[in-house]
């Protein structure tokens, strides 16, 4: 296929064309020319990109495709469609399947099913058998089959000794442990952030300290084991500070934040909207500010979707019976971009650059994946987007099999225009 992206601004600090508006010609999946103005060869698909920007393809560190086991919520095909719609060319999929992805056969199932798709799929294997937090899973076997990292997803490992063994053992094969920090003996049956909002609503709270205690513990364990550790979907100001301090001390720590934790706060739960029942919970304005500061100063490495499809039966019910999570791949960038545009920070270009870095190079670096380039001769792995375009999230436009999004009928700023990867060009809806 021949594709000409006309007049797109290149946002890729490693590219010699960073910050410049150029034409990009792609032939057979390879970038063959980047110039001020390119005459399109015969048979070229031309995309007029005036006002639009292009970066290397986006990478999500935290999504669930429910396949196998919960295919009525999402499967690999619909999940990857949603990813494309959201501008992602790579997705790390969590082991929350049934059975839990804790063996090589399940890793291989995902890899085989994703073959030939326009999005790269990176399975994350379980740390413990069945994600039960009791016995280590065969991590090396899974890595040998293609698992890129290890996580028990939203089942935090309560046992400090087991966590230490996981950190030590994974060093044998440079495996990365990703941990969702939450001390369930404190958060218990909590349904939302503990604060004045939860007090007003009479809902059991999830205190910030439940997250921060686990991070503090894990940082000690990782320092002791001299192992890298990644924290998934952090949400509190205290968590940002703990990780900032650890990075200063030279610990090999990285973390990500879910885009929606940058935009919504616990105040938005006043109507008991179960689509905003999320894990980690939506926190407070001070936490949102700390998370955005953390992204801008590099404390937080990546922005992820935390895509969690749920069927209507698990969402359209009493708040404390509803399941946690929202679908987010298709709105991830727009949500983060909207949150950034609302922040008080003045240098909007620098903020956007931080956000795109957190969607491209940084998440790939965490998983030690090769970084795509925007230069002549490189494979075209590109996402085209318009950070200023406003759009309405329409339910019938969503590609995900589930519709559990609090953003339906809401306006967001920042739209994915299209994705070019593996010699294919996908225009977003």
């Amino acid at each position, binding site marked *: 296929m021949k594709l000409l992206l006309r007049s797109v601004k290149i946002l890729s600090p490693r590219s010699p064309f960073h910050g410049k508006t150029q034409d990009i010609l792609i032939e057979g999946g390879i970038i063959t020319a980047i110039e001020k103005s390119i005459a399109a060869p015969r048979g070229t698909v031309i995309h007029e990109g005036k006002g639009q920007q292009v970066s290397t393809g986006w990478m999500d560190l935290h999504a669930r495709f429910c396949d196998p086991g919960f295919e009525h919520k999402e499967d690999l095909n619909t999940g990857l469609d949603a990813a494309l719609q959201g501008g992602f060319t790579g997705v790390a999929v969590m082991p929350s399947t049934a059975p839990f992805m804790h063996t090589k056969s399940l890793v291989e199932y995902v890899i085989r099913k994703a073959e030939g798709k326009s999005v790269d799929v990176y399975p994350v294997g379980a740390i413990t058998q069945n994600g039960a937090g009791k016995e280590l899973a065969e991590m090396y076997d899974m890595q040998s089959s293609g698992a890129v990292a290890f996580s028990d997803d939203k089942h935090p490992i309560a046992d400090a000794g087991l966590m230490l063994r996981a950190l030590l053992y994974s060093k044998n094969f440079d495996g990365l442990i990703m941990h969702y920090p939450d001390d369930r003996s404190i958060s218990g049956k909590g349904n939302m952030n503990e604060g004045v909002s939860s007090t007003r609503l009479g809902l059991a709270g999830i205190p910030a300290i439940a997250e921060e205690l686990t991070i503090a513990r894990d940082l000690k364990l990782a320092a002791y084991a001299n192992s890298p550790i990644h924290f998934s979907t952090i949400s509190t100001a205290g968590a940002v500070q703990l990780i900032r301090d650890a990075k200063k001390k030279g610990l090999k720590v990285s973390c990500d934040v879910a885009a929606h934790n940058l935009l919504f706060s616990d105040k938005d739960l006043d109507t008991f909207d179960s689509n905003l029942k999320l894990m980690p919970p939506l926190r407070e304005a001070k936490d949102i500010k700390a998370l955005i500061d953390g992204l801008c100063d590099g404390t937080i490495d990546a922005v992820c979707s935390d895509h969690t499809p749920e069927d209507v039966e698990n969402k359209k*019910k009493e*708040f*404390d019976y509803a399941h946690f999570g929202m679908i987010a791949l298709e709105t991830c960038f727009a949500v983060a971009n909207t949150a950034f545009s609302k922040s008080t920070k003045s240098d909007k270009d620098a903020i956007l650059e931080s956000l795109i870095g957190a969607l491209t190079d940084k998440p790939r670096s965490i998983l030690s994946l090769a970084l795509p380039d925007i230069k002549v001769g490189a494979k075209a792995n590109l996402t085209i987007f318009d950070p200023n375009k406003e759009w309405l999230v329409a339910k019938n436009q969503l590609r995900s099999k589930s519709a559990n999004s609090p953003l339906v009928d809401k306006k967001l700023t920042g739209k994915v225009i299209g994705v070019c990867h593996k010699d294919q060009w996908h225009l977003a809806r």
Partner: protein
Amino acid sequence: MKSSLSVNHLLGIKGLQLRDVELILATADTFKDVLNRPIKKVPSLRDLTIANLFFENSTRTRLSFELAEKRLSADVVNFTSSSSSVTKGETLIDTVNNILAMKVDMVVMRHPSPGAAAFLSQHVRSRIVNAGDGTHEHPTQALLDAFSIREKLGSVKGKKVVIIGDILHSRVALSNIFCLQLLGAEVMVCGPTTLIPKYISELGVRVEHNLRKALQWCDVANVLRIQLERQDIKYFPSLREYTMLFGINKALLDSLDKQIVIMHPGPINRGVEITSDVADSEHSIILDQVENGVAVRMAVLYLLAGKNEK
């Protein structure tokens, strides 16, 4: 005073304006007069059918609502399911829609889940009265408490009210806080540190952990039942020790240098949060609360039904 509520459902005190509360209390005055007549029934809600859906155990609130409905000449159906329909796999919306399909005009619901009444109001076409939703709100209890304070002390404005006990698991406490604040009272909560929500003071209430100091401060003490059935983990070692720290007895009341009013939403654990001689003393307006409950619930049902007709 306006003669119509600003809301279509009574989901909580939070959504009400001061004039709504004043209207309900004034209407309840009228109904209390009616209840003291030889013929206690008025035809106001004749031809209306009200369903009382109780997904959680309740005796007095359900009886109080049922009596209020019957005094207003409404037809009443009761649905009680302590284990809740969830165990049968039927959703709340389905259960309620099934009942509404039998042509029911209003729903009075108690449910163990916070926000259940609000959830229902978003998904079914009926007037909803929240008779207690988990640890969230119990608005008619707060209204009848305010009515009873007003009756006893002349007004609520400027009065000091302490709510004593398990605040963390109490819908009565939350609704009372909102209602009393709306009416201009000062509110304090008192109880064990493990049962006071960490951020409660941000609602504008005082927090006190010393019972004597709390009683010394207040005009009215609203004593909550210790609801062991709501506590899946232990927040204090034993009832005995709870009583030692937070139980109200006659000697303690007598040692204060003033008279205070004792309230309790019932049912009382005699000898735990309150001793019998206090519950039965002249300080106590516990039975007035029960009587006023019927009048206040009549007022709520009557005013919401009035909105129905428009």
